[in-house]
C-alpha cells in the first residue's frame, strides 16, 4: 500500500461519510457543515488526480462562496416552520432511490467494464501537464477565448438579474 492509496482512502471515506451525514442530519446548519467537509475531501481527490486548478476552484468557489450563500439562505429562512418535503410527498423518495441506483450502476460500469486503467496510465503524464494553471490559462485564452468572454456577459447578466430580483425598489 503506497502513500497515495492511503490518502485516497482517507479522502474518499471522508467524502462518503460526510455526504451521508449531510443528507441525514435534520438540522440544516449541521448539514451545511458536513457539506464543507465533503467539498474539502473532493478538493483533495482532485489534487490526487493532478487537477490542481479544479481543486483550488473547489475550495475558493464551493467551500468559500457557495457555502456562505447556503448558510445565509438557511439563516434567512425559518427552516423549522417549513413542512418536511418527504412527509408530504412520499413517492419522491422512491424516485430519488431509482435515480441514485441508475447513477451508481453507470459509475460501476464505467469503472469495471470500460477498462479505463490502460487508458489512464497512458494519459497520466498528459493529465499532469494539462492540470496546471498555466496550461488551463493557455487553453482559456486561445481555444476557449469566445466562451471566456461569454462568461463575462453571463456574470454581468447574473449580477443585474440578482439585484433586480433581490433589491429593486418598487414605487
Amino acid at each position, binding site marked *: 500500500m503506497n502513500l497515495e492509496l492511503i490518502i485516497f482512502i482517507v479522502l474518499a471515506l471522508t467524502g462518503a461519510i460526510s455526504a451521508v451525514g449531510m443528507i441525514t442530519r435534520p438540522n440544516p446548519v449541521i448539514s451545511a457543515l458536513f457539506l464543507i467537509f465533503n467539498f474539502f475531501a473532493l478538493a483533495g481527490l482532485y489534487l490526487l488526480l493532478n487537477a490542481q486548478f479544479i481543486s483550488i476552484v473547489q475550495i475558493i468557489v464551493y467551500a*468559500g462562496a457557495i457555502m456562505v450563500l447556503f448558510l445565509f439562505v438557511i439563516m434567512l429562512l425559518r427552516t423549522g416552520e417549513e413542512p418536511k418535503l418527504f412527509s408530504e410527498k412520499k413517492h419522491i423518495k422512491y424516485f430519488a432511490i431509482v435515480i441514485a441506483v441508475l447513477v451508481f450502476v453507470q459509475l460501476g460500469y464505467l469503472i469495471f467494464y470500460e477498462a479505463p486503467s490502460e487508458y489512464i496510465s497512458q494519459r497520466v503524464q498528459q493529465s499532469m501537464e494539462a492540470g496546471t494553471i498555466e496550461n488551463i490559462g493557455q487553453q482559456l485564452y486561445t481555444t476557449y477565448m469566445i466562451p471566456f*468572454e461569454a462568461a463575462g456577459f453571463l456574470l454581468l447578466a*447574473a449580477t443585474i438579474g440578482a439585484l433586480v430580483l433581490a433589491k429593486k425598489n418598487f414605487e
Partner: protein
Amino acid sequence: MLTEFGKVLVFIILAAAFVVIALFVARLIRPARPTKEKFTIYECGENPEGTPWVKFNIRFYVVALIFLIFDVEIVLLFPWALTYQDYGIYGFLVGIIFLLILGLGMAYEWRKGDLEWEKPSPKPPNLAKILEKSKRNIPVEVPD
C-alpha cells in the same frame, strides 16, 4: 520523495494534529463538573427566552450573492495572470475586456446603491408629542 503538494499535505496534517492534540490534552487534564446552569445559554444573567434563530435581513444575502459572482471572476482571472504575457497585447486585451464587462457589473451595483448598507432610519421620539400625551394622562391633582 516529497513533491510540492506533499509538503502541503504534511503542513495540513501537522495543522490538524496540532488542533486535535491540543483539544485532546485539554480534555484529559481539565476538571469536568457539569451542572445544569452551565448548559444554559449565556444571557447576562437573564433566563433565555424563545429561539435564538432570528430571520436575517435580505441584504446579507445580496452581499453573499455579489461575493459569489466576483469569486467566480477571480477564479477565471487566476490563469490569465499566469499566461497573459505569452500572448502579447492580444492576451492582455482578452483579460481586460473580461474585466471591463465585470467592472461594469460592479459599477452598476455601486451606482444603483446596492452596496449601501441601508440602515432602517430610527425615528427620534417626538418629545413634544410625548409630553402632550403624558400631560393628558396624568390626572391633575385637585387641591382640597
